[in-house]
């Protein structure tokens, strides 16, 4: 990775972690409280994040011809819908049990929340098992 691109990734990741931490989403208790309908604050977090990203996605390609560190704008590769939804179902079970999802989990380690390492370890094991045994070629 080129140095400027690396710097961009570091800044973007840092901002994301800062935002997740400030929005309290890195605390599994807050997530579980949301999923139990006790505290709807995270709905505001998701709404604002998605809304702002939507505006940026609409505006930036009109202003700039290409991203700062890539040749052109492109969308992500698509996956079969059935696989996406099956994965979403499995992920939802884990999220509902633990209150931990990938981005906030990594940021949570930075905040010194060590127990979340168990959940991160579980993610590595789950992803490995999926790739090893359930990955259609």
């Amino acid at each position, binding site marked *: 990775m080129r140095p400027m691109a690396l710097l961009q990734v570091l800044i973007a990741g840092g901002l994301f972690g800062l935002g997740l931490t400030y929005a309290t989403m890195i605390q599994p208790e807050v997530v579980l409280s949301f*999923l139990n309908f006790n505290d709807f604050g995270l709905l505001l977090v998701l709404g604002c994040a*998605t809304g702002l990203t939507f505006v940026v996605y609409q505006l930036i390609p009109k202003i700039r011809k290409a991203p700062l560190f890539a040749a052109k704008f492109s969308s992500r590769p698509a996956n079969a819908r059935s696989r996406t939804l*099956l994965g979403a179902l*499995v992920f939802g079970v884990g*999220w509902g049990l633990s209150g931990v999802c990938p981005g906030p989990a990594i940021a949570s380690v930075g905040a010194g929340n060590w127990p979340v390492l168990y959940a991160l370890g579980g993610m590595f094991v789950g992803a490995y098992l999926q790739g090893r045994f359930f990955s259609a070629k």
Partner: protein
Amino acid sequence: MRLSSGCTSGHGICGMALLDLDSILAVLVFLSTAIVVAHLVTMFGGVA
């Protein structure tokens, strides 16, 4: 090939902001599943 290919951030923020139908469906599925599971855990005396 992987399964969900996205999480709360990937589908929830980026995918939905692209108005990607698969992402919107994925968010509906994992959010409703997580809500049901979290409520079940609480119902059966979990820590939540």
